[in-house]
């Protein structure tokens, strides 16, 4: 990041400000939905895996095969590594899960979505990318994994500082 010395504290203060605002929302106690099924549990282990292959194996326990039925939409050059708009759609049916993996990030698994039936198998979100990286979207359909991959170029902006 090319933030200058003078600037860094303001960004931090803003973040701290936002954090305190978020904590303010602590009002209601975290309720654990009583009937959440076992596999609804947060995939802690998968998010801890550093590289992509381990993350996929930990999360799904099987490997994916590339498929042109998975349409991954991501910018060629990210406007900013902190906010990269990414979306995926698929024509596969019986989709139960969609996940995103950013190969060059410290932890490959970025986000994983459960798609109950009746929900359209498509997601748009904004992810962080540490540097130029391969981005992989994996769709679990009828128990099998299908993937699409795209490279996103990421670098800092500005002229120096």
């Amino acid at each position: 990041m090319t933030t200058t010395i003078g600037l860094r504290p303001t960004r931090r203060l803003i973040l701290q400000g936002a954090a305190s605002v978020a904590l303010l929302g602590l009002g209601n106690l975290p309720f654990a939905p009583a009937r959440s099924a076992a596999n609804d549990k947060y995939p802690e282990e998968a998010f801890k895996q550093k590289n992509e292959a381990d993350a996929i194996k930990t999360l799904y326990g099987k490997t994916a095969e590339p498929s042109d039925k998975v349409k991954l939409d991501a910018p060629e050059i990210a406007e900013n590594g902190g906010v990269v708009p990414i979306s995926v759609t698929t024509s596969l049916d019986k989709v139960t899960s969609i996940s995103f993996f950013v190969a060059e990030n410290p932890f490959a698994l970025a986000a994983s979505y459960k798609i109950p039936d009746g929900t359209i198998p498509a997601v748009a979100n904004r992810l962080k990318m540490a540097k130029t990286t391969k981005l992989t979207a994996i769709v679990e359909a009828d128990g099998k994994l299908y993937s699409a991959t795209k490279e996103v170029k990421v670098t800092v902006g500005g002229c120096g500082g």
Partner: protein
Amino acid sequence: MKQRATVLLGSALGALAALVFAATRVVAADTVDPAADAKAFQNFFFQKFPTVKHEDFVNGPYSMNEDMKRQWREKEEFPPYEFSLDAGKEMFSTPFKNGKTYADCFPNGGIGIRQNYPYFDEKEGKVVTLELALNRCREANGEAPYSYVKDEMASLTAYMAFTSRGKPMDIKIPDDPRALAAFENGKRYFYTRRGQMNFSCASCHVQSPGERIRAETLAPALGILNAMPIYRSEWSGMGTISRRFVTCNSQTRAVPLEPQSDEYRDVEYFLSYVANGLPISGPGARP
């Protein structure tokens, strides 16, 4: 021998002509003519980027690059400045300790007036910007002024800009020598090289808009303040005009001046005046 002489004579004549031409230009520049400057400024960009619609210039880098415009369009569906806008709206209607609100300080209750800022205050003999007017309103009502580079000021100006969206920039220069001097001072600041990088605002925003400085695409100078304040992903937060000027200075390794120094107020006056007619598009989202 003869051949060398003609070459010498030719270059001497050429130099003489250049001098005369330069002289006339210098004379023309001494009388300050903002209207002519604005016309020349706008025509420069309209001719340099004939395919860009005139009102599109206010979208900065997104008017220069299709791929980034798509990313921006996606973000605009639910823009990251949404929280700051809501906060600004709330702050705008929350009364001060003395019961007054910002609406009491501004014409038309502060709604839909952003396009007239900055203006030249003939009593004070200086340019007054929206951020300065907001802090003066706070001080006049016994409240502490906000930092010019922090979120509160950005939220207030975001809300006021939002209420003026689409209205053409409408900056006036009264027939007052001090106003003309402020305009000229702003113009000089805009074109003056500074910092170890030896860049002026024009080096990036006039000579190379549309080109990249690493990941970022440079915005054209025309309409560059129309989208202020901006949420920048790079700052992952809001930025006022003051914050943008200060950070641009430090990027060229020039020590920034105090926010709302005369130079900053005058360059804002110059940049807003030459964008007269182009729509307000703030608050904006930028890389």
